[in-house]
């Protein structure tokens, strides 16, 4: 039976609950889990003041309730599974190294910031800075996979170096800004200034997009590697029109203010 945490008292200010993490809970029992320390604003309190704890940790944690004000859940986790039954607050899965987080609702900003491994699935939308580096960091996401079935806001994959981010809906502005490497796939529309300052890496979009003047158009071709991604996305619950599988993509290289080794691939299918 998994450990079940149910929010019984809504925090008035953000609750920093980085202790909700398999690595920190694995050796604890029910009462010890309730006694773990969280920050309610600048005040140290016990987790039990906000959550009811039921069950035993068997590798899985299920969290219930309106968690918009609960931050850092699953931060730095290396194994196990966290299932969040609703929305979740800032920094969820930040610096995560392994395991899996499933969010049935929406995720707030800084989801999986500086992630290194593991997998996060968001059934709803995600906020700004998804899979990005913190301000001042030269390297952001360094591995792992983020699947967002809805939309994301700005600066998704900022200074991303490795890994995969998939957005089932639309992405905001500056998708892949200052990207170093890795792959971002957007099935919907992207905002402006996609890939600004990117050095390497791939941004793949299944729609038209506004391209910066520092990018140059290369060609229209069939990148067969995309089929592998499409197959993988379908296995992860994304529904993709089969016409994309054999379709052509327009390739843009950039950003020429940097190495000019990055690529933006835009599906031509919608234009037919």
């Amino acid at each position, binding site marked *: 039976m998994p450990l079940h945490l149910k929010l019984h008292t809504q925090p008035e200010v953000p609750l920093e609950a980085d202790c909700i993490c398999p690595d920190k809970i694995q050796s604890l029992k029910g009462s010890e889990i309730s006694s773990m320390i969280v920050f309610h604003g600048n005040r140290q309190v016990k987790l039990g003041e906000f959550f009811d704890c039921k069950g035993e940790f068997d590798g899985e944690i299920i969290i219930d309730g309106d968690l918009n004000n609960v931050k850092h859940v699953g931060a730095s986790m290396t194994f196990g599974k966290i299932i969040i039954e609703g929305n979740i607050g800032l920094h969820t899965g930040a610096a995560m190294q392994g395991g899996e987080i499933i969010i049935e609702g929406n995720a707030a900003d800084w989801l999986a910031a500086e992630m290194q491994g593991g997998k996060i699935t968001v059934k709803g939308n995600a906020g700004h800075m998804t899979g990005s580096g913190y301000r001042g960091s030269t390297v952001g996401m360094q591995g792992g996979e983020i699947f967002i079935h809805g939309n994301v806001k700005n600066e998704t994959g900022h200074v991303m170096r490795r890994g*995969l981010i998939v957005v089932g809906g639309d992405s905001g502005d500056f998708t892949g800004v200052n990207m170093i490497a890795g*792959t971002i796939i957007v099935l919907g529309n992207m905002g402006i200034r996609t890939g600004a300052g990117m050095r*390497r890496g*791939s941004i793949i979009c299944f729609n038209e997009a506004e391209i910066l003047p520092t990018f140059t158009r290369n*060609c229209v*071709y*069939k*990148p*067969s*590697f995309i*089929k*592998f*991604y499409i197959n*993988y996305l379908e296995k992860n619950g994304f529904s993709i029109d089969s016409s994309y*599988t*054999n379709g052509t993509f327009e390739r843009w290289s950039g950003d020429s203010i940097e190495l000019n*080794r990055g*690529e933006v691939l835009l599906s031509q299918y919608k234009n037919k």
Partner: protein
Amino acid sequence: MIIIYINMKLLKHDDCFMKIKSTEIDDTFAEAFKMFGSRIIITAETKEWAIAAAQSVTGFATSVIGCKCEAGIETEILPENSPDQRHGISVLFFAMDSESLGKRLVERIGQSVMTCPSTSCFNGIDDGNEVGVGGQLRYFGDGHQISKKILNKRLWRIPVMDGEFLVDDIFRVKEAVGGGNILIMAKDQNTALKAAKSAVKAMREVQNIILPFPNGVVRSGSKVGSKYKALIASTNDAYCPTLSSVVEKTEIGEGVNCVLEIVIDGLGLEDVEQAMRVGAEAAIKPGVKKISAGNYGGGLGQYKIHLHKLLAKGEK
């Protein structure tokens, strides 16, 4: 002698004599060797281009003696079953050791698959030793190559003039069996060719095997050594009809005027045995005097595949 009727075929069998219909089955064995094998899957925009690449990559790969590896087309793969949903051809490679096979894969995929328009190339087996293929070929991209890791598998995208050549970073090689064989000894060349054609057709239905010689058939069977010191192998004079009265020991019996051999390499011993069995059965025709098998006295190969046991098993 005992006479057994099985599946309406007349089988005469005692300790050293076996006959199926009018064809004698020699009481001997094929001597097969431990080799290393690998499967690659070539895909392309059309079946025509996939076949073109497969034919090129398996060219000049009949025998490890002179070609460094043995290779052949295993089967066609329909788009719905291929790694990238395009037309595919699977090809098997065999060499005497893992390192050598890895080198052959790099050379041949680089020269014959990467060069062929619209192709991609993927590893086709899950177990065995890893050899870097895409990781070597990527340097052709001169720094413009891009890697993508999907489901813990790394792919290399190498820019080429029609777009990109997509190739797996790692291919796998595993222990395999080479040198399974049957010898078709017939009254004349026409009969031998027809019997060999039937045998090849039947063998090609077996999975995990290839027949590395032209159309699957070899006429220049070899023995170990030569009177010329520089040669490690020479014509198998015991099976040359023109030498039947010249050499000290001949295997050419009464009424035999032509011998053709079919060599089988496979990823497993059972695959090779199955291919030999169906091939020998298909080769049994009027005018085929004897089905035999080649060996070196049993002192060289790790596997002995006895024809009598094999065909008796097939009858059961």
